[in-house]
């Protein structure tokens, strides 16, 4: 029995996303951000989106394209300090922004991908972050119940994929990508290279194919994927 083929065109993959969807976007800064998938989402113009991403990229790239185009209702993130546009829109009430500590954001996504309902942590206890959150006591110690964070879609950037969607990431372009790929109802991955089935060593797969629904081959990379000149 051959493994299923999940290759799609970028138009077809992104067209599955309706208005009002929640969408996880891989990436920590530039590395791992699925710029081409985001660009297609801008072209198709779906609105009222809830985005979940570690950061808001920088002004003029990635998440910022969606902000500029008025497609974003809410952003769940750990840090938006490099995108002054996102900060301004937040302060002006044009978008809702929900912050989580970076590792808590990652773990909320990880446990959603693990199919559990939440986790218990002492991170943020005694600070305003703990306010309004459910508490439980384990072995005499108080903890905060952090809920699993799922999304309707995940858009990932991979270095390599095979047609089944086994993904490999390069260096720090891994970051949130495999976690988000596990936590979304439908996972769409762009890949710099699509290798034949069997072209990835089974031990070296960073995100196994069962989590991936659509694989999109990238053409030559746009400049935005490159080293950022400062």
């Amino acid at each position, binding site marked *: 029995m051959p*493994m299923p083929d999940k290759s799609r065109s970028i138009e077809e993959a992104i067209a599955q996303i309706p208005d009002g969807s929640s969408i996880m976007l891989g990436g920590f800064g530039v590395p791992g951000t699925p710029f081409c998938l985001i660009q297609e989402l801008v072209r198709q113009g779906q609105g009222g989106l809830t985005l979940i991403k570690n950061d808001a990229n920088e002004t003029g790239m990635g998440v910022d394209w969606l902000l500029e185009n008025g497609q974003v209702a809410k952003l769940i993130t750990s840090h938006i300090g490099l995108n002054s546009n996102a900060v301004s829109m937040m302060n002006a009430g044009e978008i809702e922004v929900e912050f989580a500590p970076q590792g808590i954001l990652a773990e909320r996504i990880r446990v959603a991908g693990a199919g559990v309902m939440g986790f218990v942590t002492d991170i943020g206890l005694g600070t305003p972050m703990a306010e309004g959150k459910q508490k439980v006591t384990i072995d005499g110690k108080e903890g905060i119940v952090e809920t699993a964070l799922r999304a309707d879609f995940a858009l990932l950037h991979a270095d390599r994929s095979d047609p089944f969607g086994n993904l490999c990431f390069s260096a720090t372009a891994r970051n949130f990508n495999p976690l988000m790929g596990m936590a979304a109802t439908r996972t769409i991955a762009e890949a710099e290279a699509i290798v034949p089935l*069997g072209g990835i060593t089974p031990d070296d797969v960073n995100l196994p194919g*069962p989590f991936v629904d659509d694989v999109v081959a990238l053409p030559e990379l746009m400049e935005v994927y490159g080293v950022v000149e400062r």
Partner: protein
Amino acid sequence: MSSSAKDRMLKRAAADIKAGMTVNLGIGLPTQVLKHVPENLPVCLHSENGIAGVGPVLANEKADRNLIDAGGAYVSPVPGTSYFDSALSFAIVRSGRLDLTLLGAFEVAGNGDLANWMIPGKFTPGAGGAIELAQKARRVGVITTHTDKKGNPKILSACTLPLTARTCVDRIYTDMAVCDVTADGLCLTEIAEGVSVDDVIAATGARLIIPDQPLPTF
């Protein structure tokens, strides 16, 4: 159960494995379903010890000592196989990425309750991965002889053994029939060739809904 009745049952279960699915097959009868799946059907077989893309079982002399399935058989990779740790493996199961599991049963109830891992005082080895497979696969099929070796029904109005999971079973494949767990109750859906509806009712310990129209055979 005659070998032809068994083959019909396995073949019928195999027909519900569809292109594109990720599937986990329990030890025993479920694994034997494989020989009835078309060779060219695109399917990903999952094993809970950390494989997506389980290939054919190998003879000992050809085996990789590090590559077993959850039942301990020496298996092989296929093009596109991946290996992963046990937490990720059950993440596949619990997060809704496992489209189908086929499991064995000691007892199954008309409401879909399943008991397949423990006989108090006799067989208490621990549940392994059975509980999560039963509770979380998107679709759960049970493959079992319709009655036990003494002729007693294995499909009951309520399980007497400790449950693996509540109301988890969608479909039951036996040597006599296919039964679906529905909102209205357990429904006789298909019947094995040469078996009568009365035979099935007599061999079943749960109330069965019998459709008005003629039943398909398998």
